[in-house]
Each structure stands twice: as structure tokens, then as C-alpha cells.
């Protein structure tokens, strides 16, 4: 979901920045209550972890690969607000330090992946975790990818309706929802399976690792 600059209209990214800024402030406030010598380095470490998880390729049959995001894992392990901040920091780092992904797409990706993805994963885990841990973790990971894909596809698909010239020609992203929803969402239904497996295995691995470190 790395959208370069120039595909999102200011009518979209300016309100998205306003909404994201308010939510970043709220997230910082919520996390700050726990922000001390322990949590601050953890936020940095999980930001770096999320950054590198986005680089780890999940092999797909046929020789192609997909990329996980680690959003589900971050959300169930460290909470929704921490995951939102970590994912937002990753997106900001990618856009402003590594030149990967657009600065105008940042608030949309942060809200879709960081906020909606994290909290959807957390809600799934909290609702279903007591019934069946493995299924809940898998679904949390799957949903943390599929829901942001639906949201980003919707934002992209609305661009021709939001910004067009008097003749009706699109000024930014040129395809409507009939193209963006299947093009973006269908591949992510598969990527979500990889993310679900990563969330399940990552959770089990982290649980073992924490027990080992505590011993």
C-alpha cells in the first residue's frame, strides 16, 4: 500500500492529516502515561521491528512474494495505541528518511494500517482470544491487513469523484471503486493469510522468549 505522492488530492490528505494529528496527540498522551525508561526504548524497538517486518518477504507459491506488516502482532502484544504510533513512525521514517512512499499518503496509511488495522486486530483478539487462541490470533493478523486494504482502496477509488476538472477528467488517482476494490483487496486477502500466520507464530515465539528472558 505504498502510494507515491501525487495520487491523493488535498481535499483528502489535508483532512486526513488533521484527523491523524489529533489521534497521534491522543495516542502519545495515552502511551505517555506509561512512557518511562522501559516503554520509550520499546516503542523505538518495535518501530524498527515493524519496519523490518515490512521488508521480510512471505514466499507465495509460483515464486512471487508478499510482505507482512506485523501490525496484528504489534497490536496484540503491545496494545492499539502503541501499535498505531509505531506504524505511523515507520511510515514517516519510510517517507522522510528512506524516500519510500508518499508524504501525502502517510496520514491515510497511518489511519488505515496503524489505527483501523491495529484496533481491528486487538478487538478480534479480545473478543475471540478466550474461545480459541490460535484462531483469534490468525484472524487478528488477517484482519489487520484486509481492513486497511479495503479502506485504502476506498480512498483511492473515491479520488476521481473528489477531484476532477470541468470536463470530468481525474486530477489525481484516475480509477474508481470498481477498479480499486478488486485490484487492492483481492491480493491482500492472500497476504492476510501470511500476516495471520506471522501473528500466531510471532505471539507464541514472543511468549516463549519473554518467559526465557524473565527466568
Amino acid at each position, binding site marked *: 500500500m505504498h502510494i507515491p505522492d501525487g495520487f491523493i488530492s488535498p481535499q483528502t490528505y489535508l483532512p486526513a492529516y488533521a484527523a491523524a494529528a489529533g489521534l497521534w496527540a491522543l495516542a502519545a498522551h495515552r502511551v505517555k502515561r506509561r512512557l518511562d525508561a522501559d516503554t520509550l526504548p520499546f516503542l523505538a*524497538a518495535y518501530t524498527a521491528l515493524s519496519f523490518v517486518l515490512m521488508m521480510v518477504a512471505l514466499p507465495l507459491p509460483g515464486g512471487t512474494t508478499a510482505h507482512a506488516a506485523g501490525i496484528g502482532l504489534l497490536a496484540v502484544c503491545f496494545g492499539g495505541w502503541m501499535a498505531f504510533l509505531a506504524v505511523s513512525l515507520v511510515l514517516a*521514517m519510510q517517507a522522510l528518511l528512506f524516500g519510500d512512499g508518499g508524504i501525502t499518503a502517510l496520514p491515510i496509511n497511518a489511519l488505515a494500517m496503524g489505527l483501523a488495522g491495529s484496533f481491528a486486530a486487538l478487538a478480534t483478539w479480545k473478543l475471540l482470544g478466550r474461545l480459541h487462541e490460535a484462531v483469534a490470533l490468525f484472524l487478528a493478523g488477517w484482519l489487520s491487513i484486509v481492513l486497511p486494504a479495503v479502506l485504502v482502496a476506498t480512498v483511492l477509488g473515491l479520488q476521481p469523484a473528489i477531484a476532477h476538472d470541468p470536463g470530468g477528467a481525474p486530477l489525481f488517482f484516475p480509477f474508481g471503486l470498481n477498479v480499486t476494490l478488486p485490484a487492492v483487496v483481492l491480493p491482500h486477502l492472500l497476504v492476510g493469510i501470511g500476516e495471520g500466520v506471522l501473528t500466531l507464530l510471532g505471539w507464541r515465539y514472543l511468549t516463549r522468549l519473554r518467559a526465557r528472558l524473565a527466568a
Partner: protein
Amino acid sequence: MNRDRLLLLGYGAGILAGTLVHDPVWLAAGLALVLAAAGREAWRLLRRALLAILAFNAVISLSYGLMAWWQDSSPWETLLRLNLRVLLLTSLSFLFIARANLFRALDFSRSLTYVLALAYSQALTFRRAHDDFRLALASRSLRRPGLMDRYRASAAAASWFLEKALHAASQSAQALRSRGFFHD
């Protein structure tokens, strides 16, 4: 206000202007201005920006061209405007990254600068390690690795990163505490 924060504000204003202007002539003029500001680095900047947007823009432009041809309408003005805008904004971003120090631009918040610096340094280390893992798998395989081998390699890399992140966080926490970071 320091120079880097001014550059950040200028960059934000440039991005906004680049999305408010729709005339291809003005977008081309903006691109010329960015390249002029890059000076001797102009060609390298343009090449890097072109490579960064090539795949995404080629797919979008070809698909839109085909769709317009199917609907018997002219796609040229839309495609010119779209590609010029994306090239302008990407070049501007790369120029900002090359010229500005983001850490100094954001130094109004101690915690933000600290988290960003720590996350960035760890991300660089992780990225190098990720490349090493990828090269290690390639150098130890006589033939193209199979699906299961690649699953195992990805799982091993992910578990290494998880463990490393936990250790790095614990070490940083100890270092912060020993230096009294939260008591200054």
C-alpha cells in the same frame, strides 16, 4: 527557528502547492525549479525519482491509456498531468531528504527526536541484517531455493528480528536508566 525546520516547512508548502496546481506547464516549471535547486545533483535526483515511481506509474498510465482507448477518449492531458505531478513531488521529497536533517527539524520534542533517532538507527541495523540474511540464503543455495526453504529462511529471519528487538529495547532501557535520562 533552525534551518532544518524552515526546510521542513518549505517542503510542506511545496507539496501543498504541487497538489493545488493542475496546469501541466506549471507542474513542469515546478519540476525545473526543483532540479535547478538540486544543482549538480539534478540528474542523479531525476534518475532516482524516475526509478522510484516507474513501476507504479507505468501500471497506472498503461491501464488508464487502455481504458481511455476503449472509451474512445484522449488520455494524454490526464497522463501528462499525473506523471508530471508525481515526478515533481517525488523529486521534491528526495531533495528534502538530501538537504535537510529531519532530527534537527523535529528537535522541539525531546521524546520524539529520541524515539525517531533510536528507531532509525535500529532500522538501519535491521535493514543491513535483512540484506545479509537474503544474501546468505542465495550464497548457500546451489539452485533457486524452494518454497519450504524460503519459508524457513523468512521464519528464521523474523524470529531473529523479534529477539533482537527485545534485547535492543532492554539494553536501551538500561542505558537510559543508568544515564538518568528521565530525571534530568
